[in-house]
């Protein structure tokens, strides 16, 4: 069965962002794309249940919940959540050699944050959801989003300082 054109029109433009969020959470390109495929399947099947919900947070909520399930399964199967073993080539393609060092650093740092902190940093900072939309995705109050955001940023700042700090200031870093 072909996907109706109206759904394609709304969902297709959001696929790159869904892939980005999935990859940031799972840190593995194949797993992330597999997850997005699950999301699309569900979204198409349940489109009629959306009932006026804005598509972007609705899709991110499906993605987030499925991602958490997968991370838990990984945990149960004994696969470490911190995926240092995943070669960086399977993550985002780096723009340049120096950038890749810093980008790998920030991804490693956020992988050490609790999941609820990592999600909020990604949804607000990278996906640019509104605070209200992020609250919908994560199923918490907007006040909770604000306090998680504040704690997550501070925690990340401390971690970055402990590991040398330079990782968050790529433009100041010279690698000769």
């Amino acid at each position, binding site marked *: 069965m072909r996907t109706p054109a109206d759904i*394609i029109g709304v969902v297709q433009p959001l696929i790159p962002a869904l892939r*980005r969020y999935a990859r940031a959470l799972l840190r593995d390109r194949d797993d992330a794309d597999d997850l*997005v495929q699950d999301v*699309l399947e569900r979204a198409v099947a349940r489109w009629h249940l959306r009932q006026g919900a804005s598509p972007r947070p609705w899709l991110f909520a499906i993605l987030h919940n499925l991602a958490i399930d997968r991370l838990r399964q990984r945990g149960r199967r004994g696969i470490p959540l911190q995926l240092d073993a995943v*070669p960086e080539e399977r993550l985002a393609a780096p723009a340049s050699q120096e950038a890749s060092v810093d980008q790998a650093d920030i991804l490693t740092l956020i992988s050490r944050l609790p999941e609820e902190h990592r999600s909020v940093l990604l949804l607000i900072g*990278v996906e640019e959801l509104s605070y209200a939309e992020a609250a919908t995705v994560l199923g918490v109050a907007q006040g909770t989003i604000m306090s998680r955001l*504040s704690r997550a940023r501070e925690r990340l700042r401390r971690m970055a300082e402990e590991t040398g700090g330079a990782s968050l200031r790529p433009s100041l870093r010279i690698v000769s």
Partner: protein
Amino acid sequence: MSKTPVTEAELQAHVDGRLPPERSAEVEAWLADHPDEARRLSSYRSQRDALRAALDPVLDEPVPLALDLRIGEPARRRWTGGGRPLVAASAAGLLLLGGAGGWTLRDWSAPPSVGTAGLAREAISSFAVYASDSTRPVELAADHQRALDGWFSERLSRPVSAPNLEAAGLHLIGGRLVASEHGPAGLYLYRNAAGESVALYVRPMDVEKTDRMTSRGEKGVRGWTWADDGLGFGVFGSAPDGYLHDTANLVRAQFRKA
């Protein structure tokens, strides 16, 4: 200067550029008097920028076929067919979606003789014919690996070399050039201590220049295909699927590093 006290929530919103302009100006003025807080916020901004820089390249990647809603059946589960949703869009669908932008008929009406599905069929045939050949499975043996790599690189018009698969217990026995309808393809053959053969098939891709790793199988031969940056790969054999998958991952990692 504002008399309304600045809140932590406002500072966070300021980092995100989400305060109304008037309030934003007031917070700016407040920050000018609180350099420690200004530094803290600046660090938060750097975090966010670094995170975006690390993840934004994903947006520039082509959307994989398996995720493309404009192609027939978007989300058919892989375990139902062992393959990706194939490009079975009807002419009606084509007319309906013709205006969707940037897409040509050629891009998405590709029959399975092209793309990594086509590559899989070629690789399976090559494996079936050559791996079982007890007289001369390869044209050039592993002790001429340099010549073999040079030959493939020249015919495929890009640097190719036999990956080291010792980690999977596989030793190169050699390779040969094979013909496909898409031009020359390189076939490396490996063997493990148990005598199992594994073929690595590689050729340039016209369609699906980048494609995720996908499980394939036909006539008792199993394996995995993928494409990176215009080069398509197939790892095939009659060994267990997990073993072939591990081998395919080894191959992919080495080619991406090269």
